[in-house]
């Protein structure tokens, strides 16, 4: 085993000199990116003598970005008439239900307009507004207050000059 090596292919024929590699998420080990080295070991070099750094190429493996647009598979499904439209129905049904509710409410109120009597409610509300304060001496807060009785203000005899 070569230390740090996380992927080793099978022994393959050295005919074309190519190998396709699909990048796995596990190789990142819960990180966004890792720096790796790619190396090729010929059959005649044993593992002990093989150094991947000797002729290897340094590169990065990255998580990549997710693009939320229809993939080829999704487009093919749409073309075949298969689509996952659940969200579409939910998004449409909520405002439809609200509109239907208000329409029914309107007709219900219109039909029961003559039988409706809110006078007891309204009277109570109006009476609250028209509350009479009452006598100052009967107010709980001012009952104990010693108040002087009203007496006539002192009056002065008018002099002859004033007349």
């Amino acid at each position, binding site marked *: 085993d*070569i*230390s*740090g*090596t*996380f*992927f*080793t*292919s*099978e*022994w*393959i*024929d*050295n*005919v*074309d*000199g*190519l*190998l*396709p*590699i*699909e*990048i*796995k*998420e596990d*190789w*990142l080990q819960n990180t*966004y*990116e*890792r*720096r*790796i*080295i*790619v*190396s*090729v*070991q*010929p*059959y*005649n070099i044993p593992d002990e003598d093989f150094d*991947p750094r000797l*002729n*290897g*190429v*340094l*590169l*990065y*493996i*990255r*998580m*990549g*970005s997710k693009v939320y647009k229809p993939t080829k598979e999704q*487009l*093919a499904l749409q*073309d075949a008439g298969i689509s996952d439209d659940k969200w579409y129905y939910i998004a449409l049904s909520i405002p439809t239900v609200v509109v239907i509710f208000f329409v029914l409410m309107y007709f219900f109120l219109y039909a029961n307009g003559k039988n409706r009597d809110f006078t007891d409610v309204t009277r109570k509300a109006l009476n609250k507004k028209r509350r009479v304060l009452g006598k100052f001496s009967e107010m709980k807060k001012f009952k104990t207050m010693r108040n002087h009785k009203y007496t006539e203000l002192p009056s002065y005899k008018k002099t002859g000059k004033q007349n």
Partner: protein
Amino acid sequence: ARAVHRPKEKMTTSEEVKPWVRTIYGSLNEIVTPTVIAGVTFSAKPDPTPNPLQPWVSLKKDGTPQTIKPEIKKGRTQKQKPDYSTYFKTATMHTFSYEELKAVNMDPDDVHEEEEFVDEDDTYVSLNPIIRCTPDRYFSKGPAKDIPSEPFCTPRENSDWKVGKTYFVTWYTRFFEDENSDTVADKVRVHLSYVKEKSVEMGNHKR
């Protein structure tokens, strides 16, 4: 009004790649099963009528395949499938005696040596549509870009490989030639190994 874009019809099962039979080395019959990797069909059945403008597959710097369609411009074919020169040929010295050549300017005792290139066995190489790696396609690597990337052509140094995608690692097969026996290693394997990075080097990529 906008023109309706209708996607191209998908391949049906009858159009899918199927195994085919070929005769190799004169008399041996072989069943070849085509395989599709990253959109590239390997071991595909050749057209009954050879097309000089047959598309071939090149590789981008990171090793992703790219189909190239040759085209004729001003009477010349452009973007043709690459010629590998003598990179995959075996050089041999052929010695001609005077009796064989009977050249007018040759002494009867002399021998004439001439280098000849013998083509490789393309029985299996011909099934590969992807461009092969040759030393003229090496790139330079290292901080000063002064180290040849031998034996690799792709991927280039500091390429980005993204999760879920398929990339082609290509190398020059004759790089692994044994000097003593002049034989090329017939089996190889590819390793991917982690590299320790300094803290200052980590996370510099703009996401």
